[in-house]
């Protein structure tokens, strides 16, 4: 489970870039399963799914669009209506919404390798 120490985040978005390379073989932060939200100049915040054992997002989804596959939460884009109730329900502000589809994207942990954790230059992200 990735935990973010927001105070250390500088907003460089290396996590977003490496995520898109890992999953799509191209550099495109907009496809990333991790997102930096910036509140210039005082804060950059990492948005990433913590893979909760009892996920509030799943409870909140009335379309049953969020399922657990191989231990990771995943969105079924056909069922998802982009109502974003899951975003509101997440107590950790951890749901990334795709700018392309308008629907949530969940971290798949890179088979528990977490490349974003490995590449973060400031150890903002850590695995527990």
């Amino acid at each position: 489970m990735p935990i973010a120490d927001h105070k250390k985040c500088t907003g460089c978005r290396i996590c977003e870039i490496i995520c898109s390379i890992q999953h799509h073989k191209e550099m495109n932060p907009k496809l990333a399963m991790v997102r930096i939200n910036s509140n210039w100049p005082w804060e950059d915040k990492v948005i990433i799914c913590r893979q909760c054992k009892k996920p509030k997002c799943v409870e909140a989804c009335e379309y049953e669009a969020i399922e657990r596959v191989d231990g990771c939460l995943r969105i079924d884009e056909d069922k998802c209506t982009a109502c974003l109730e899951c975003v509101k329900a997440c107590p950790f502000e951890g749901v990334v919404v795709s700018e392309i589809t308008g629907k949530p994207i969940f971290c798949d942990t890179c088979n528990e390798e977490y490349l974003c954790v490995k590449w973060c230059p400031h150890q903002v992200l850590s695995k527990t």
Partner: protein
Amino acid sequence: MSNKKYFGYAGKILTVDLSSSDYVVKDTPFDLIVNFMGGKGFGAKILYDELKPGCDPLSEENIMVVATGPLTGTLMPASGHITLSTKSPLTGIWLDSHCAGFLGPELKMAGYDAIIIKGKAKKPTVLVIKDDGVSFEDGRDIWGKFTFESQELLRKKYGENCQFMCIGPAGERKARFANIVSGGRGFGRGGSGAVMGSKNLKAVVVKGTRGIGIYDLDGFMRICTEAYNELTVSPDTGGGRPKYGTNSIYSFMIEAGAHPIKNFQTGVFKAVKECNEDVLDKKYYKRHIACFSCPINCSKASRVDDGKYKGKFTEGPEYENMWSLGAQCGNSNIGSIIYGEHLCDEYGLDAISTGNVIGFTMECFEKGILSEKQIGFPTNFGNDDAIIKFIKMMAKGEGVGELMSQGVRQMSKELGKGTEKFAMHVKGMEIPAYDPRGAFGMGLAYATSDRGACHLRAWTLGDEILDVRDRMDPFATEFKAELVKNQQDFFAVIQSAVVCLFLNFGLTQRHITRCLQSLTGIKEWKTTEDILKIGERIYNLTRLFSMREGISAKDDTLPQRLLREPTKEGPTKGVVVDLDTMLKEYYLIRHWDREGRPAKEKLIELGLDKYKV
């Protein structure tokens, strides 16, 4: 989905005509890519070919080329930069200006390597560039507003995660060194904000979702991993710069007498105990900020916690502005520097030129050339209230501020009385934060910089002052020509690649070459020599551009103060810059004749022989 035609590139160039509200999208030509790479190179080629010689920079004939490069927006460290090329209203010659942050990557994600902006809109306009098209929107509701407020309003209108280019009131009224702000960063120097203002273009909004393709994924990952490691172990990019930002060199420059004080009258700053990088770090820096893909995070968020400027904040203040609004004006009140820098960004003024002009005005006041009656208040060196007042007056064009905002060259021309001897500019561009009497290389760098006095076309301080193992004598002329020429060519590559120049403090030319190779797979870019040849080609073409606008060897000079007026104290006591010796050697190495014209053989070698000298 990424462009599969050329790896590393978006593959399209957008040309916008504000006069007719039309736009065209064309493929990025391969010969442009191979010979000019991107960024500054694209700007040089496009402007030389398309800009009418002798045109008024503030007329609708002027063109702005906003361009990324192959490395922009990639995993390569510090790839958040973007370049703007145009004819400068401050100098009347070539201008390329660079902006850090997130705009460059976003433009590529929107699908464009470059935007060429032509014409003049009939009313204040916001240009909106998204994946699915381009639109010309009414900008009247934000015309007149500050840059930060404008960007907030645009963000509300066009959505989160947009990136912007935005001018403030100074650019709107075409102040000659108005800047363009993007987030908390900007295209600082040379008055690109005035060009945007003259086109009635208040802002550009960019948002995209496309990716960038990689030619050799494994090779590219290897070189990027290596690059991150190198940057981490470098004492500069992995040590001083992350901690102190660009101010990591502040005390070194003061110690060497290379930090100009009170408009270059002396190199001794008595207030250094209360105004230095340690004070900044302990008292003002609140957090580190990075640009896109950058592990160095040289930027800081600063806030003033007490005193007269309590609550004021800025992204910065960086080294240049610590000087321009500080030592240049005899000012050591860091609170006022923080507030001053924020005001410059808010109104849209280049803070380097702003501070340089204020220092000049203060000297004119102390010498009795400008009276209190003319200015409206006393302006002795060290008067921080005056600095704040001047910034607002320049931005609004009030009182003496109108003349000041035309730049120090024009100001001294109108004042006369021998002021040209201490009007600190080269080719109309105000000199930044290094005194060449403390490092001769910077004298040659300023004199031969293609956009006028600039520290980012060659930066010799590393070799002349900071290098502890193999330091050059800062007061010698030997080898300086070679150093400056080589840096100018390599920096032109970095500024066309387009990445941050600070990579130069941790990586080698070989790193950049290998990264370009594995990303793009372009066969013509085999060796570092191939890459440097592109840099040399670009530097010669910008020279030809400015010569076409009337520049010759007589302009490759420095203000009299640096050439004939030795400082009276400190480490540079008695020194003046021996420019002639370095300049002669520089022309020789560049294969430029005594008039500073590139030799025909050189142009043939660079494939520029169809261009006139």
